[in-house]
C-alpha cells in the first residue's frame, strides 16, 4: 500500500512537470488557435540561454572560433541578472516570431500554422545549438534536490525535493496567470481575444500586440518548465522532446483549458507511473513511451473534445 502511495505521489509530481509544458501550449492555442509544436524547443532554448549565461558561455562561440574572432569574452552572470536577461531574450523571440512568421500567416488554415511552428522548432533547435553548443549543461539555480527527509522519516515515503519545489512553483505560476488574466487590462484583452477574434478586433484590441504578449508569456512559462526539467536532468537536446509528453496531457485536458492542462497532467503522470509499476513487468517495460497516448486516446473516445475542452459544435 505504501508502495502504491509512493507511486501515486511521484506520479502526481511528474504530472505537474508535464502540466507546466502543456500550459504554454494552451496559452497560445487559446489566444491564436495555433497549435504550437515549438513549445518544447522553446523550453530547451530558454533553459539553454539561462544555463549559458550562468556558466559564462559565449554565444555562437564555435562560429566565432571558426572565423578567427575572440570567442571567450562573456562574463559569468549572477543568477539575479541572468534570469531577467533570459526573459528578455524570450520576449525578443516572441517579437521576432510575430514579425517574421505569424504576420504573414494570418487567416491560414490551422495545419499550415502547425507546420510553420514545426519549422520554427527546427530553427530554434539549430540556433540554440549554434549559440550555446550541443554539450549537456548542468543547470543549478539553487533548487533543493535529493529526497525529502521529513517525508522519509515520518511516513517512510520517498519524495524528491525538486519535484515538490516544481509543484509549488507551478501552483504559484498558475495563480499568477489567473490573477493576471482576471485583474489586468492586458489580461482582459487576452480573454477577449480568446473568446472571439472578430469581436476583440472591433473593440480596438490589436491582435498583433496580443500575440506578442501571449508568445512572451508562453516563453516565460517555457523558461520555468525548462529550468525545472533542466535542473532534473541537465540541459540537453532531449529536453525538447518533453513537448511530446505534453501532447497527451493536452488532448486529455482539452486544448483550450488551463485547469484541463493541470488535471490532464496529473492524470497522465499518475497513470503512467502506476502502469509502469503494475503493468510493465508483464509486457516488457518502457511503457512510458506510449502509455500516455493510449490513455488519452481512451479518454477521447468518450469525450472527443477532451475533459475540459469547449464543446465542438458543427454546422453545415
Amino acid at each position, binding site marked *: 500500500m505504501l508502495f502504491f502511495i509512493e507511486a501515486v505521489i511521484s506520479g502526481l509530481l511528474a504530472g505537474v512537470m508535464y502540466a507546466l509544458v502543456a500550459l504554454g501550449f494552451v496559452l497560445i492555442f487559446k489566444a491564436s488557435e495555433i497549435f504550437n509544436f515549438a513549445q518544447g524547443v522553446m523550453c530547451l532554448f530558454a533553459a539553454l540561454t539561462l544555463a549559458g549565461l550562468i556558466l559564462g558561455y559565449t554565444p555562437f562561440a564555435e562560429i566565432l572560433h571558426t572565423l578567427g574572432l575572440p570567442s571567450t569574452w562573456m562574463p559569468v552572470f549572477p543568477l539575479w541578472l541572468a534570469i531577467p536577461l533570459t526573459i528578455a531574450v524570450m520576449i525578443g523571440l516572441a517579437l521576432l516570431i510575430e514579425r517574421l512568421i505569424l504576420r504573414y500567416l494570418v487567416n491560414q488554415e490551422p495545419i499550415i500554422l502547425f*507546420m510553420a511552428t514545426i519549422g520554427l522548432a527546427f530553427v530554434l533547435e*539549430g540556433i540554440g545549438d549554434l549559440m550555446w553548443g550541443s554539450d549537456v549543461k548542468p543547470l543549478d539555480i539553487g533548487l533543493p534536490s535529493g529526497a525529502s527527509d521529513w517525508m522519509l522519516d515520518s511516513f517512510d515515503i520517498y519524495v524528491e525535493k525538486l519535484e515538490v519545489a516544481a509543484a509549488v512553483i507551478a501552483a504559484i505560476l498558475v495563480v499568477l496567470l489567473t490573477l493576471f488574466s482576471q485583474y489586468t487590462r492586458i489580461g482582459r484583452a487576452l480573454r477577449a481575444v480568446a473568446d472571439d477574434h472578430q469581436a476583440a478586433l472591433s473593440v480596438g484590441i490589436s491582435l498583433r500586440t496580443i500575440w506578442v504578449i501571449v508568445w512572451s508569456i508562453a516563453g516565460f512559462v517555457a523558461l520555468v518548465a525548462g529550468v525545472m526539467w533542466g535542473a532534473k536532468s541537465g540541459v540537453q537536446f532531449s529536453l525538447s522532446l518533453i513537448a511530446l509528453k505534453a501532447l497527451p496531457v493536452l488532448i486529455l485536458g482539452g486544448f483550450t483549458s488551463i485547469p484541463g492542462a493541470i488535471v490532464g497532467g496529473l492524470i497522465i503522470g499518475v497513470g503512467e507511473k502506476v502502469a509502469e509499476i503494475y503493468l510493465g513487468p508483464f509486457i516488457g517495460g518502457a511503457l512510458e513511451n506510449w502509455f500516455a497516448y*493510449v490513455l488519452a486516446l481512451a479518454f477521447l473516445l468518450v469525450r472527443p473534445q477532451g475533459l475540459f475542452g469547449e464543446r465542438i459544435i458543427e454546422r453545415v
Partner: protein
Amino acid sequence: MFYRETGDFKTSYAADAQIFPIALDRWAFWLALAFAFLAVPFLIDDYWEKSVLLPFMIFALAAIGLNILTGYCGLVSLGTGGFMAVGAYASYKLMTEFEGLNIFVIVLLSGGITAAVGVLFGLPSLRIKGFYLAVATLAAQFFLVWLFNKVPWFYNYSATGMITVPERTMFGIAVTGPAAPPWATYLFCLVLLTLLGFAAKNMVRGRIGRSWMAIRDMDIAAQIIGVPPLQAKLSAFAISSFYIGVAGALYFCVWFGAVEPTEAFGINQSFLVLFMVIIGGLGSMLGSFLGALLLVVLPILLKNLMVDAAGMAPVLARHFEITIVGALIVFFLIVEPHGLARLWAMAKERLRHWPFSY
C-alpha cells in the same frame, strides 16, 4: 507560344478524361518516364542510387500515401514512421518465414498487412477530428515502435535487435542485400512507384477519391449527400497505409538492408513525410513527388555546400542544416501555403498566356 491547348481536339470521353489533357504535358511525361526506365539504369552509380534516387522514390511513395490520408481525406496523421515500420517488419517476417516467396509479392503483401494495421488505428478517426486525431495517431507511432523493440518475435530473436535483409532475386538478379547492383534496385523501386503512382492518381480521380474529398471539405455535408464516412475514412486509412507500408518495406529491404526501429522509424520520419506533403502541396499527386524531391536533395546540397565547399566542421554544418531547413519550411509556407504544386500550376498558367498576357 508553344504551350497551348488550342487545336488539341478531344473526340472521345476517354481522351477528355485522361490524366494529362494537354498534349505537351503528355509528351513530357512519357519522355521523362522513358528516360527513367531506359537511360537512368545505364547511368546510375552507387552514390546516386543510395543517396538520391532510392530515397526520392521511397519517400515519394510514402508521401503519396500520406497525401491520400491528409491531403485528400483531411485526416492529419503523425504515425507515418510507425506504419513504415509495420511495412518493414512485415516484409522481414514474410521473407524469413516463407523463403521461396517472390520479393515483389512480399513487398505488396507487407503493404496489405500495413493497411490492416492502419484501419485498426484509423478507427478513432470516426469520432475524433483535427489536432486531437493528429495527437491520437502519435499513439500508433510510439506504440508500434515500442512493439518492434520489445517483442523479439518480430526481429527473430537476433542479439542486436536489428533486422537484416536476406538476399532475394527477381529474374535471377539480386534486388535486396549488399550484392544487389544499383540499377536492379533502382528499377525494382521504379516499377513499383510507377504502378502505384498510376493507381493512386486514378483512385483520387475516381469515385473513391471524390468521396474522400467530400469528407475532407465537410464531413457532415458529405454524409447528408450520401457519402458514408465510415467507408470513406477507413478506406483512406487502408490505402494510405498500404502505400506507406510498401515504402517502409522498400526502405528496409532495398535501401538500407538493416534497420533498427527507434532510429529508422522514429517520430522524425513522420514529420519528414508530413513536411514533404505540405511543402509539395496537400491534395496533389505531383506535390508528393516535388516535396519528396526537395527534402531529399536539399540536405545533400546543403551538406555539399557547407562541408565540402566551405570546409565547415560537420557538427557545425549539421546545426546550420537544421536551422536552414526549418527556415526554408517557414519560408515556403509563407510564400505559398498550397505548396510547390501550386507554384508549378501558376507557372504553367503564365506559360499558356506567354508572351501575350491578355
